[in-house]
């Protein structure tokens, strides 16, 4: 029973998850691009690579914008969160091992101690976001159940991953949950608000183009 579950999540479901992830991203981008060509031609007319990049750079460097400087704690938490979130799945030794065993390719990996710390940072940040939504009035007003759901979707792989790696009690079940929750997160990215990952360069780039190229002003 256990092993059939294991083979399910580590076999076919991996393909499903990655298909939904990559396919979903392409689908979202292409359909948005088509919709823009049909109804928002201004986006094509005014998007300027230079000004788009200028704005994007100011917003992916910590403290690059006025609002980031006004909220240093939020800035540090969100930047560490996103960095660790992206780096861990790709450079974790355990993950790279799985890839090597399957396809005989590998790449550089994180030392386990660093990986542990980064996992705790992600989990800590998720706790920070949760508390923030419950406590900070301007965030609370905007929050709906779906916000808690996507937070759970993102936190789950990291909590279960930590649990699995350290072989805490019940780690065998945690392994299944980890793989499954990772797959759920991948599949959810293109189809939920987690898609901000793929749309950020476009919304930021467009605002940067409008502000920079048309209005000769800075949007950070």
């Amino acid at each position, binding site marked *: 029973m256990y092993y059939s579950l294991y083979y399910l999540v580590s076999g076919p479901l991996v393909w499903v998850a990655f298909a939904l992830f990559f396919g979903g991203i392409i689908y979202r981008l292409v359909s*948005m*691009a088509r*919709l*823009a060509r*049909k*109804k*928002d031609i*201004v*986006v094509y*007319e*005014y998007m300027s690579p230079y000004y788009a990049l200028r*704005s994007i750079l100011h*917003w992916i460097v910590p403290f690059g*914008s*006025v*609002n980031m400087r*006004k*909220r240093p704690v*939020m800035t540090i938490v969100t930047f560490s969160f996103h960095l660790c979130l992206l780096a861990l799945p790709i450079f974790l030794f355990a993950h790279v091992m799985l890839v090597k065993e399957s396809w005989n390719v590998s790449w550089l990996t994180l030392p386990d101690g660093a990986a542990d710390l980064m996992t705790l940072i992600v989990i800590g940040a998720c706790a920070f976001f949760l508390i923030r939504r419950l406590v*900070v*009035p*301007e*965030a*609370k*007003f*905007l*929050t*709906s159940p779906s*916000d808690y759901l996507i937070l759970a979707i993102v936190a789950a792989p990291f909590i279960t991953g930590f649990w699995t790696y350290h072989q805490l009690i019940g780690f065998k079940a945690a392994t299944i949950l980890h793989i499954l929750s990772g797959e759920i997160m991948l599949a959810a990215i293109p189809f939920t*608000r987690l*898609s*901000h990952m793929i*749309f*950020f360069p*476009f*919304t*930021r780039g*467009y*605002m*940067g183009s*409008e*502000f920079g190229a*048309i*209005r*000769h*002003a*800075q*949007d*950070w």
Partner: protein
Amino acid sequence: MSTHQENTVPQKERKIIVDPGVDMGMAKLTPEKIEKTIKAVLDTEAGARFKTYLETCVHCGLCSDSCHYFLSHDRDPTFSPAAKLKQTIWEIAKNGGKVDADFLRRAVEIAHSECNLCRRCSMYCPFGIDMAYMVMFVRRIVHKLGLTPANMQDTAHSHSATYNQMWVKEDEWIDALHWQEDEAREEFPGLRIPIEKEGADIFYSVIGPEPKFRAQLIYQAAAILHTSGVSWTMPATPGWDNSDMCMFTGDHEMMGRLKRAHFDTAMRLKVKRIVMGECGHAFRSVYDMGNRWLGYKMPPIPVTHAVEFYHELFEQGKIKVKSKFKKPVTFQDPCNISRGLGLHEKAREVVRATCETFIEMVPNREHNYCCAAGGGVINCGPPYKFKRVEGNRVKADQLKTVMEKGARVVIAPCHNCHGGIEDILHSYGIDMEIKFLGDIIYEVMEKPGQE
């Protein structure tokens, strides 16, 4: 008589301002009409931007600190930019147009008196979501439903009937020009306001209220243009008004007609460019919204804002300063000129060239706060005045701080800023004057025939 509203009473418990325009429009609507109209607008006009802005907002609330309404209402979460969208367009999009009368009344009030479309929030949102665009969507829907606040709708009617904002008739316009020319010739013998002069370099355009309420600005502009020796003209026909309330009510069709009239007038007069007086939203209409509705990527004829024009005149030495303005001044960055046009540095150069003591308010430049009058909000008229003034305590604080540092005069190159800041100065008891950049230049410049 506006209803008094507490600073921290949650949105749901606040009393809605009674507006005859909204009432009359509401009486004509049925749930079926509402749903059908909203669906039609969303189908034809909501595209990738609308969808992306709706879906990419992660509900973080980081936009809150940007908004003068949020800050002035002691951080009431219902006034944050994203919250304003949640209470209006998010709900409309989610329900596919099935919204009731109470909801619509709140949506009208939020969209027309709780947001100035100043775009400060897009500088605070990590994604650069264009919240002003989304609020304008609400206004578009409101316009199509016939629920625009009465006073603002009246200006839109005036635009439709007379092509200007203030019901100025064709002969009244010419009379105003002749009158100001007569007055000005006492101080500047030989001054002319050339009307319908084909082939002039510049078509100087003004906003609707000028011939009616601020005629002295025409005098001053004529004085500056005359002294600088540039070749200019003004039209005798409708198309002289560069203002555009239709842009703010969501009446895009009329906005298009207005700008076409304005551009056509310039082209009929065969001028090289349009120089427009110190107005903020007019520039947005010419440079950003009106031209795009007509299909022009950029305006078909170059348009220069007064601030940039003054800068040119100083750089080219066509205007010289006799003696600088003595009273310490500060500078209000109108939204459409700083965030909207990047003219904040040139404006400061002109201020420094004409004034002895310049004290900056903080924050400034692109990050300066809106006056709360723009975006059509002051045009909603007296029922909304209290709310508008109450919603900009941060501007009052800014002005008080700069007054304590010694500033006596606020320079604001925008008509809406004048209305907004005047109301704030009076309501909060701040003893400062407000002036246009043209006022200062006229006062300090060397006039021909004077030593």
